[in-house]
């Protein structure tokens, strides 16, 4: 059992979950994820690590409320426990002295891009961080990110903060920075990843995405997480989750994520990211 230390809604629809998982915290690296269960009868779902504290033995995840399991997680109260938090899984993101790196985060990816930006900064990169959300009130962790970013750029759908639009603004943003960008790293929902990938392709900048197909075990055992990258089948949980965005078969990935869509509508009548399109998800208004 893994004790929940803290759980609160940081912005509408996104919860920050902090759990005691010392083994995970000790080994965690940027870009890795855990698999969790909210209760004993529940599904196993993957969540990226947004932060951790090896000394306290805790890990933190930003959870976007999209369906049955994520809703259950949102309801859990601090002091209770979760039956499964296993990891850290997947390969860590490649961190090196790249030069100038653009880190892009949207929805839960604002959280999970944070340790990547931090590690890049510690490797003396110039770090430009782009936060993408529907509106200004859906942005979070600006303060934390500022500590490791040379500049933070905002994109909001409604224009309430920074650039108006979505990640199709990336070419403009990159141009405005006035320095050549050596690498773009993007975390967030699949649709955001795809759109960002489309946006950087013409620029010829190496673009890394953290893919999020459906997963069960996260250890290479079930094969449900298979994605086609560079026309080869890869298991995202063990070969990824980071891949070269421009080699990913996005149509297949978007399709495969819908495998259980109609079934999942049964236990809970909320739709997943893609049904309404993550970029247009209506937040829960309190």
């Amino acid at each position: 059992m893994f004790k929940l230390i803290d759980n609160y809604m940081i912005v509408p629809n996104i919860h920050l979950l902090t759990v005691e998982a010392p083994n995970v915290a000790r080994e965690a690296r940027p870009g890795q994820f855990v698999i969790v269960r909210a209760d004993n009868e529940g599904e196993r779902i993957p969540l990226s690590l947004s932060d951790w504290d090896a000394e306290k033995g805790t890990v933190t995840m930003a959870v976007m409320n999209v369906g049955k399991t994520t809703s259950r997680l949102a309801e859990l109260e601090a002091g209770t426990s979760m039956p499964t938090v296993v990891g850290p899984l997947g390969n860590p993101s490649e961190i090196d002295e790249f030069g100038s790196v653009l880190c892009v985060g949207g929805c839960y990816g604002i959280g999970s891009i944070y340790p990547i930006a931090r590690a890049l900064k510690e490797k003396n990169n110039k770090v430009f961080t782009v936060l993408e959300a529907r509106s200004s009130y859906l942005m979070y962790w600006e303060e934390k990110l500022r500590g490791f970013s040379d500049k933070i750029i905002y994109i909001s759908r409604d224009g309430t903060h920074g650039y108006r639009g979505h990640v199709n603004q990336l070419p403009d943003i990159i141009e405005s920075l006035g320095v050549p960008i050596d690498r773009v790293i993007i975390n967030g929902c699949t649709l955001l990843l795809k759109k960002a990938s489309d946006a950087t392709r013409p620029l010829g900048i190496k673009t890394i995405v953290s893919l999020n197909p459906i997963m069960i075990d996260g250890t290479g055992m079930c094969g449900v997480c298979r994605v086609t990258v560079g026309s080869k089948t890869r298991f995202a949980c063990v070969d990824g989750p980071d891949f070269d965005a421009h080699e990913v078969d996005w149509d297949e990935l978007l399709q495969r994520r819908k495998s259980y869509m109609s079934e999942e509508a049964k236990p809970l009548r909320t739709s997943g990211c893609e049904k309404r399109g993550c970029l247009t998800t209506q937040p829960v208004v309190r």
Partner: protein
Amino acid sequence: MAEDKTPGKKPAKKAKARKKLDLDRRDIPKQPVEARVRNFDEVALGYSAETAIEEAKRCLVCKKPKCIGSCPVEIDITGFIECIAQGDFAEGVRILKEKNLLPAICGRVCPQEDQCEGVCALTKKKGEIAIGRLERFLADWEAEQPDIEIPVIPPPTGRRVAVVGGGPAGLTVAGDLIRQGHGVTIFEALHEMGGVLIYGIPEFRLPKRIVKREVDYLEKLGVEMVTDFVVGKTRTIDSMLEEYDAVFIGSGAGLPWFMDIPGENLNGVYSANEYLTRMNLMKGYKFPDSGTPIVKHKKVAVIGGGNVAMDCARTALRLGAESHIIYRRSREELPARLEEIENTEEEGVTFQFLTLPIRYIGNDNGWVEAMECLRMELGEPDQSGRRRPVPIEGSETIIPFDAIICAIGNSPNPLIAKTTPGLEIGRRGNIVTDEETGKTTKDRVWAGGDVATGAATVILAMGAGRKAARSIHEYLGSLPVKS
């Protein structure tokens, strides 16, 4: 009966043999077909005490019992069968457990026709003794007794062993070492112990409570169990070696194979592991009461002919689908247990032999809707001694299916191999071990079961665990005594 074994008493034995030759192998009662295809309860119901005694009495108690030599862990088969015949079940259990820690499981899932029963002096025609069923009977009888005996455990040696993987190999190693007074911790990647016994083999063939019982028993003996712990990720073997005197790797063969043909990533194409894990470990068959979504399919093709394929086909059937097994050779070559092939046929799964899928065809929404396949004929025998299937030219056929389950095999997961320097890995991704001791090429590290052999059987995994435990115990004994 002891006299039979002394020479010079031949006439008595002859008389006995003549009197006793009973060729009627006792059937095991099963759930009726119509009922069982609609539930997930166990199919075979087990012998009553009377039937077990009758069956046991048929045994010739051979002087040189071939059956024992063909059991991978050399259970004293004549010994426990004689006990059943005399109604002394407790003693029978004791004899069984000397060699087999998990008799309730092996009695149910061993490929007996290739092992103990396959060489029984009462040949198939004369009705070979139902050794597996008798074994199961004893184990089930024991489970019903109020107090399961906890053996006396010697004082702690102060030595500690880490076991990777909670499948039959790991459980056996843990059970053997804890009884020698060593400290044992099992680290399991999934959220439940049992390995394939839990996530792979379906409830209707091996009820999960039986596995649970064995796991609970080990816990009572003092084995520590850590679930949700992926060795190689949560912690490396090297780091564990700092804390433990020895490590046993029993991580199985969990990496699913695909055929690498077009359309394999369409929705509705599953690996057997995914399909069975959703159903068994995640209780998908209870959906929507359980959180695990499963898709209701209408017509399912399972590719393969082993136990895994049978399990998938029968699971799909129970979920209301029309279920087909697509196998590239003929019935004769099916590698599954005979009893399960028969059960599968009885339940109404259709077998399409000599058929090889070459492509899956999807609809506009990315869901599979058909399979293109080739018809085969059997040619010359290959290395395995089985006749090699050869495609018949121009025999391409398209058959509609809305789900495909790929059950063509698994190999060991490379996770541990990749993160453990000094472990020699074989060509098929298996950890190289010494067959007699289970020793790997890395100091203080042992391995066994499917991770060493590639996908095999429960009893072989247990046998390997037993050998490794013996070797680990020897090694620990050679270390200076800990105060």
